[in-house]
């Protein structure tokens, strides 16, 4: 990242920090799949933690541990069995209303990408505001062009998602989410399918977008290095049923770039957490063996 970008990031950081929004509180969340009592599977077990506003919170856990269940509950795709989730001061779901309504204040970026292949990139990006009827198509197009230029995506407006590389597709999807000015971005292992070189580019790109927009980010992954590199806060989950095993505040200063990976503090965090994550991975593996 060049000096200019860092400078502008510092400038926006102080300006927007005061107005940071998108604090999510997860209180005693429980999710049981199937019939309660008989034959149900406990996916999320009395899970309580905070997602601080204007920061990146990364949830790490073995595949299939129930992280996505939690994200789906925040997004409003699934109900909780008990507990509640708050966004700023609004209760998304809780007693009496177990399923949140999906809405443009909490936009999800999906694991395998969910750009509509039948719409061009700019039609995808303008989808939110146009559907909600808060912008005319022309206004939306103008805003989309500006945001695409900002994110280094100029020139692919009228291409279809199938014509661009998967890395670029992820950026288009993030811009599509940001078009709605969401309080929080929910990223569900968005870089899982990318190769490690593209991934490293995408991490810096995500941070750059974050420094510009200061939107709260809730990021799910099973990659510890990714978690510590990106997160202000890293929540390590136990394997199914999932609940926080360890919550770390990563004090490596932002803005970060790829040189952080060789940083001593980064290594210390890796050492501190690797054992905990590995332990859960083994539990998950054993559980998987038993199920078969």
């Amino acid at each position: 990242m060049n000096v200019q970008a860092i400078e502008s990031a510092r400038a926006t950081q102080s300006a927007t920090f005061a107005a940071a929004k998108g604090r999510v509180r997860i209180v005693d969340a429980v999710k049981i799949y199937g019939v309660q009592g008989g034959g149900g599977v406990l996916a999320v077990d009395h899970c309580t933690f905070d997602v601080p506003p204007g920061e990146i919170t990364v949830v790490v856990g073995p595949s299939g541990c129930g992280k996505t269940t939690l994200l789906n509950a925040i997004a409003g795709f699934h109900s909780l069995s008990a507990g509640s989730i708050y966004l700023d001061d609004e209760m998304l779901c809780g007693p009496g209303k177990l399923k949140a309504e999906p809405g443009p204040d909490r936009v999800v970026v999906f694991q395998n990408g969910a750009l509509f292949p039948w719409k061009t990139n700019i039609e995808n990006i303008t989808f939110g505001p146009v559907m909600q009827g808060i912008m005319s198509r022309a206004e939306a197009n103008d805003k989309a062009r500006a945001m695409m230029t900002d994110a280094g995506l100029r020139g692919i407006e009228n291409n279809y998602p199938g014509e661009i590389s998967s890395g670029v597709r992820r950026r288009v999807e993030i811009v599509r989410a940001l078009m709605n000015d969401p309080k929080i971005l929910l990223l569900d292992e968005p870089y899982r399918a990318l190769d490690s070189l593209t991934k490293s580019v995408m991490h810096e790109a995500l941070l750059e977008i974050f420094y510009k927009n200061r939107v709260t980010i809730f990021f799910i992954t099973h990659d510890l290095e990714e978690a510590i590199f990106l997160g202000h806060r890293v929540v390590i989950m136990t394997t199914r049923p999932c609940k926080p095993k360890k919550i770390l505040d990563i004090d490596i200063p932002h803005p970060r770039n790829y040189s952080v990976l060789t940083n001593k503090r980064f290594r210390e965090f890796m050492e501190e957490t690797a054992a905990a994550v590995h332990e859960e991975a083994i539990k998950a593996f054993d559980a998987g063996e038993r199920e078969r």
Partner: protein
Amino acid sequence: MSETKLTEFAGVVDQQAEQGSATKITSWALTMYRWSQWLQSPRPYLMVIGFAGFLGFWYLAVEVWKLPRFAEMPGPTQVFGEWFSKDPTYGLSVFTPEYYLHIWVSTRRIAIAFFLATAIGVPLGLFLGWSVRFKQYVFPVFELLRPIPPLAWVPLAIVMFRGSETPVIFLTFLASFYATALNTMLGVESIDVSFVRAASCLGAKRWQVFRHVIVPGALPFIFTGLQISVGVAWFSLVAGEMVSGQYGLGYLINTSYTMVRYPTIVIGMATLGIVGYATSAAIRLLGNYMMQWRMRELSLGAAR
């Protein structure tokens, strides 16, 4: 922007810069490109060899070797001679207006039946796939009626509908309708739930999800269904025309059989093959036109 990202996007941006801000790959240019690719590949030449082999075997079996089972059959020289004769022995060739009347009547029946099957089948399939409750009401009945062959409907069709035209159209419609509705339903069910969730996240209402996600998402399956549908329309049409109706290629084949005009039968059959192929090719073209995104993806794959 960092150096690494610049290089990553340089390819995309350069390519775009050459084409101007808006991408101007027209479907026409793409079609021409695909044609030239096709002509450069061995496929058209293999196809010609295939036809030559088929006609050669027909010629040898019937006219040269006179194989036992083939001796009664009209040979290719006789059929083609009749087909393109200004003064056909059995009264039907490309120079007689009657020939085109048969084609026109059949095509018209197909067009009406296919239009009805699409107009009813696509919405029905969309709702079957979209609403679980609707499917629970309708699908069992649908699945019970579907295996009944159109021919079994002949008596009821004649009783139910007046005249000779509507029963034939009804029979043609039936098979088409099932194929279209079923494929459309499968198309809706094949849509990745992430697309629906993404749309609702972005604030789309239920009907907007239907219009912008369900319908375009099901299009590839819908067009597969339409291809099958137009094919089965032709064979139920011929069955219907053999039973009832006046004019039409099925009627032509049937009457030529009773009047022992064997070459005319083969002319009718060959014409069915050609017209049938033309209709499904037209559907395929329409599908490609409506699903530009797939064309672009495919052509990109081919160009690499």
